[in-house]
């Protein structure tokens, strides 16, 4: 008997695979040039011929330069520190709030819902001016505080956790109350351990956003010591002012890689998390 469909190659699947591969190639092509350029000598980069394989193998030199010219470890550390602090604060603030909104009956829950909806609409770009003025007046510019504080609240996080918690069975919380847990116990012992898919999904959103954010660091940071990766890269780009692209691409690779690796590791949970949080709708 002929086994139909299942996992063998059909004509339709061939087409689908080809289309998928083609689009993937297009999407990936900037990275091909990124990697190739990171391996080229300065004089080989701007040539009129299209060569992907570097003529001279210059990876080591370029990476060395990337590390030499900017304080790459400092930059990466700043990125990790800032994203880490932001993420931790966001989760610590958003989880209890979302729990209360989802599972406790009290009037403020509705007010909060309005605030959250409003907050979702107001991007940092809109509030940057007064925030800048305020940080300026408090002499807090050029500090981790300035980088972290405005993002310590993530209404998107509250929204996402809210969706997730609503789907958690009430019985679980009832059982916990009967077992003698206080509401704080419930948050730390029941909610958080079970919110990992949502926290993972949120972490990716949060880290991607803040690791890549240029707008805010550009405004509040003028000292290199506090530069986040994009700011550092911007500086690096300016520093090499359109010439040492090899080193620039090497630096770009160094800074892009951690996030890509993180996504690779977490992607399955990420999709799961989004599914479970009902973010999809």
């Amino acid at each position, binding site marked *: 008997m002929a086994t139909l469909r299942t996992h063998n190659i059909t004509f339709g699947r061939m087409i689908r695979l080809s289309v998928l591969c083609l689009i993937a190639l297009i999407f990936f092509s900037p990275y091909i040039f990124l990697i190739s350029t990171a391996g080229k000598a300065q004089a080989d980069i701007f040539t009129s011929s299209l060569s992907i394989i570097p003529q001279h193998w210059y990876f080591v030199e370029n990476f060395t330069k990337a590390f030499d010219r900017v304080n790459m470890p400092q930059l990466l550390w700043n990125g990790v520190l800032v994203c880490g602090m932001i993420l931790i604060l966001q989760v610590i603030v958003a989880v209890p709030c979302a729990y209360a909104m989802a599972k406790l009956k009290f009037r403020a829950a509705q007010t909060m819902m309005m605030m959250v909806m409003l907050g979702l609409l107001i991007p940092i770009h809109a509030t940057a001016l007064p925030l800048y003025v305020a940080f300026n007046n408090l002499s807090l510019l050029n500090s981790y505080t300035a980088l972290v504080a405005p993002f310590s609240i993530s209404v998107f996080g509250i929204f996402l956790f809210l969706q997730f918690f609503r789907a958690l069975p009430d*019985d679980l919380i009832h*059982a916990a109350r*009967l*077992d*003698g847990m206080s509401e704080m116990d419930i948050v730390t012992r029941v909610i958080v*351990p079970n919110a990992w898919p949502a926290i993972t999904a949120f972490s990716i959103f949060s880290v991607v956003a803040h690791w890549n954010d240029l707008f805010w660091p550009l405004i509040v940071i003028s000292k290199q010591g506090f530069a986040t990766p994009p700011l550092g890269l911007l500086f690096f780009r300016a520093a090499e002012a359109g010439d040492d692209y090899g080193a620039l691409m090497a630096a770009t690779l160094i800074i892009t890689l951690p996030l890509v690796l993180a996504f690779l590791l977490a992607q399955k949970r990420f999709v799961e998390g989004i599914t479970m949080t009902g973010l999809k709708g």
Partner: protein
Amino acid sequence: MTVLSLNGITKSFGGNPILKGVSLEAKDGEFIALVGPSGCGKSTLLRIVAGLDHADGGDIIIGGRNVSTINAADRNVAMVFQSYALYPHLTAGQNIAVPLAMRRLSAAQRLPILGNLMPGQKAIRTGIQNHVQDMASALKIDHLLDRKPGQMSGGQRQRVALARAMVRQPNVFLMDEPLSNLDANLRVHARGEIVDLHRRAGVPTLYVTHDQSEALSMADRVAVMIGGNLLQLATPQEIYDNPAHVEVARFLGQPRINVLDAQMDKAGLVRFGATTLAARVPNAAGKVMLAIRPEFVGVGVETSDALPARVERLEFLGSEVVVYARLAAIAELVVAKISPQQSASIRIGSTIGLTLPSEKIFLFGEDGARLKIEAVSHAGKLEAVR
């Protein structure tokens, strides 16, 4: 000794009265099954007893103490949920330990890492471990203690949930359809286990189910709740043989009891269609309901003292056959339960004779309340008067 008593509990949701004054007393070690159709307020009542929800009116007294205003956590009530509500991130052992840890360890001792450094913490934890181990042995789940709920079958989860509820010797035990997630075979088996366990623990238990056979087979007393009222609270036998209300009669018994509309005159003659039953019921003229359980309906050939009926459907159930037959006189469907042997000669569409033994007949008034029949004019079968 009365350990749990509910006095006139009322509750409405958004103006809808769900509980209309429910009162109930459970004696020490008693197992009370609370049955009723879906949405009648069983879970609501249970949640109110647990302290997870609060009544609009009425009092809850547990062990002599009015706990109406007391927190769920402080009532020392244990509950098993339909969904089991095990903590998915904890192993079975850790799940069972939770209520003990919450009660025996101080807040400081419970802290994640710091807690380990607190004085006395070690000893208490060991105590809890032992206790959990004992409980697990009793429920034969020793081998599961290291598994998480996701790695257990429904029956195993249910046992862990039971263990978690029992481990701390609660004042009252509440169970909300704990077996409804199990498959049929396991369910029958688990019934026995719960009854055993209850007997050993001796804690008064309120057991919600909508499965009548569970209620009848497990409980010391069955409380039938319908439409927010507790219609009857009695032993299974009493409630089955002597239902106080037509809804109770209807709710219990599979297949359902036959209820026929009838008219009763002052003289005590009950008529339905052209058939008459002479009974003596004090002050009860008017519309009545005549009810008889399927297993008491006699099925035979058409004779003069049997009611003729046409067979519409036969349901073979292995050890018995259910006959659905429509009475020729009043076009009402009557259900009879007979043995397969008896049913051998019966075909769909054929006419049979039904007899309704009058001593097995219940009469209910128009409001559904049971009418006590003081005497029936003649023993034996319901007479067909043509």
